[in-house]
């Protein structure tokens, strides 16, 4: 066994490295934007609009003469914040629901899973639209919509893994030794499910970044003038013919972040989830 896999194990996990680098880059952008920005990202200078990249404005300026580099940096903060909160929310609620369904079984299981199907079948854009209309549009309702949309996948994953593990020998053994339900869940099942959930969280994070961009594009997410990559794209779209940069850079930032997260997710899966390790 060991011999056969030696080659694969020695191969460097490039996806993990590249993924970590790209995600680290986005994180660094977000952190830097907290302490330093070359320009005020919301300051308008209409007479200086549509500048191509130059020494003063490294990525050029947008339709109101705002500095694109500063806006892309500050946008990283928005993106990571919304993504992290949404995924945290989705994973936490999903894990609880999936765990409850697996543990309670029977009609509770059936009911919760059908509810998850219904939520999962709800187009996320539609639920975001509804939430934005109820709570007012903004980062909060956008984040919540993305979080809710990601609950079913975590719930199903938790439930499936819990069910599989419940039959596992070590759980049977623990029960035979008189361990209580709570102890079995927290001590024996949860640590085994956590790795799978972490991988899923990374992938879902990537989806969340795309979803945040899409919602802000539709005006349902982050509100202007706060820099959000999706919103920047929407506003730049009308002026593409005059200057492609205001649409180009935020789009590239989204793509690189999502790419990083996806690669990171793949890399983590190879490490943490031995069953899906690729030959």
């Amino acid at each position, binding site marked *: 066994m060991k011999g056969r896999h030696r080659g694969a194990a020695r191969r460097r996990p490039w996806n993990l490295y590249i993924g970590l680098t790209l995600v680290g880059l986005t994180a660094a952008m977000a952190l830097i934007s907290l302490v330093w920005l070359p320009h005020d990202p*919301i*300051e*308008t200078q*209409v*007479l200086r*609009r549509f500048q191509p990249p130059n020494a003063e404005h490294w990525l050029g300026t947008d*339709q*109101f003469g705002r500095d694109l580099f500063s806006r892309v940096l500050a946008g990283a903060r928005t993106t990571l914040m919304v993504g992290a909160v949404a995924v945290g929310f989705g994973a936490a609620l999903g894990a609880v629901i999936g765990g409850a369904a697996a543990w309670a079984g029977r009609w509770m299981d059936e009911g919760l899973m059908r509810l998850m199907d219904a939520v999962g079948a709800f187009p996320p854009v539609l639920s975001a639209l509804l939430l*934005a*209309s109820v709570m*007012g*549009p*903004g980062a909060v309702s956008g984040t919540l919509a993305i979080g809710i949309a990601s609950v079913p996948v975590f719930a199903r994953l938790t439930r499936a893994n819990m069910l599989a593990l419940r039959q596992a020998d070590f759980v049977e053994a623990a029960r035979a030794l008189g361990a209580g339900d709570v102890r079995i869940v927290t001590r024996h099942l949860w640590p085994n499910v956590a790795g799978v959930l972490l991988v899923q969280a990374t992938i879902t994070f990537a989806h969340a970044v795309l979803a945040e961009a899409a919602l802000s594009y539709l*005006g349902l997410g982050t*509100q*202007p*003038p706060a820099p959000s990559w999706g919103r920047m794209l929407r*506003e730049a*779209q*009308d*002026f*593409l*013919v*005059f200057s492609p940069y205001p649409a180009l850079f935020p789009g590239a930032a989204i793509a690189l972040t999502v790419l990083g997260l996806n690669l990171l997710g793949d890399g983590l899966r190879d490490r943490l989830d031995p069953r899906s390790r690729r030959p």
Partner: protein
Amino acid sequence: MSAAAVRWSPPTVIALLMLLGLASFAQAAAAPVRGGHLVVVQSAEPPGLDPSATTATAATAIVHHNVLEGLVKITPEGEIVPALAESWTVSPDATEYVFRLRRGVLFHDGRPFTSADVKAKFQRALDPASGHTNQLYYAAVESVETPDDYTVVFRMKAPDAEFLYNLTRPDSVIGPAGYDRQAAHPVGTGPFRFVEWVRGSHVRLERFEQYWDPELPYLDGATFRFVADANAQVAALLAGSVDAIAGAATAEQAMQVERRPGFKVIQGPTTSTVIVALNNSRPPLDDVRVRRALSHAINRDEIILGAEFGFGTPIGSHMTPAEPYYTDLTGVYPHDPAKARALLAEAGYADGLRLTLSLPHQYTYAVRAGELVADQLRRVGVQVDIELVEWATWLSRIFGEADYDMTIIGHAEPMDISIYANPGYYFRYDNPRVRELLDAARQAGDEARRAELYAELQAQLAEDAVNVWLYARPYFVLSRADVHGWWEALPMVITDLTRVYIDR
């Protein structure tokens, strides 16, 4: 009255360049040619096609003048001319209006047009339960009488000098008595008859062969296609799949089209008054010093450049140069951040204050202007939180319940200054002096006196800084160079195709 000449914001280099580019197009004066099918693209699809059941300008742009007509109509120069009424007389005290109807006019369904149709229409307009739009335009009407088939007499409760003007509005169009499917299948007396409406795609019209003016229209037919995206509209025009962009063509579209050979840009004024509406009843905006400070903080030229590429006319009160009785009040609150700060300090907000600016998301110009307004206010110490709201929410929450601090919207209706007389209107502005002036103007028989009263009214509004008036929106038609006969100004939101022709 003739439409006032287009006024320009102080020419920044960019605006001047564009002006030179656009001014080079002159309308061809050749004889009109009959025939051809015109395809016009507009951004919004209306919810229904009856202008007396919906106020959507997407509807009036298509059907008003083209399919449905009123007793009188407005010309692009703002003049009121006969339509279904051949002539009319107004009593000197403006309490009795007598209309002589045109004879031999047919509806598109073949029925003859008579005074009974007029009576039925205005009975609906006066019935509060009928769902008729903008009923306040007809509020002064006491009775509608029809002495014979071709005479209609309106008796007024009080003098109303604006009644004739209100009859040119899209709400005043007349359909066959008893016909109730106007919204889905409009039937009128206009030069074009309605053929089909494919939801989400287009509305198709065809020449009405029995139109009362046998010379008109020139076109065999026209299609209004709905394409929301501005880039897609321009690409469709340049690729030749549509003949014109009308309705709400934007400055950035105009700039892309005017450089291309074979296309032309028509630019003129509209009566759309873009304002930062303020909730006058909500502190701290109930303090006139705060409102004046906001007015001083605003740089209109920058906003016009950022939101409309420099097209648009700065205004200082709730009237545009394209309306009668306009006076220029842009000098009342010049851009002066220092003064704005001083006024805020005087009002007790030396440390700044925080306000919410709600922007109707579907109106791009409002969102763009809003981002600039927010930044300009920030510079004088007013922190602005922007929220984008859907149109439905805007209508019910902001317009209906006045639950807002500030919002930006273009008031497209011409001659709508009377809204300031209504304390329940969403500005929540209440000044008896304004009501007196308005009543006096409405009842004044003498034109000069009326102009004087309207000037005073505008000055009073500016004095109170009820809202921050930004600019009058520009009007653009972008079309193939061989399409002629477009309106050169937009005193009302109509894409009038009556005299449009294709010379190919």
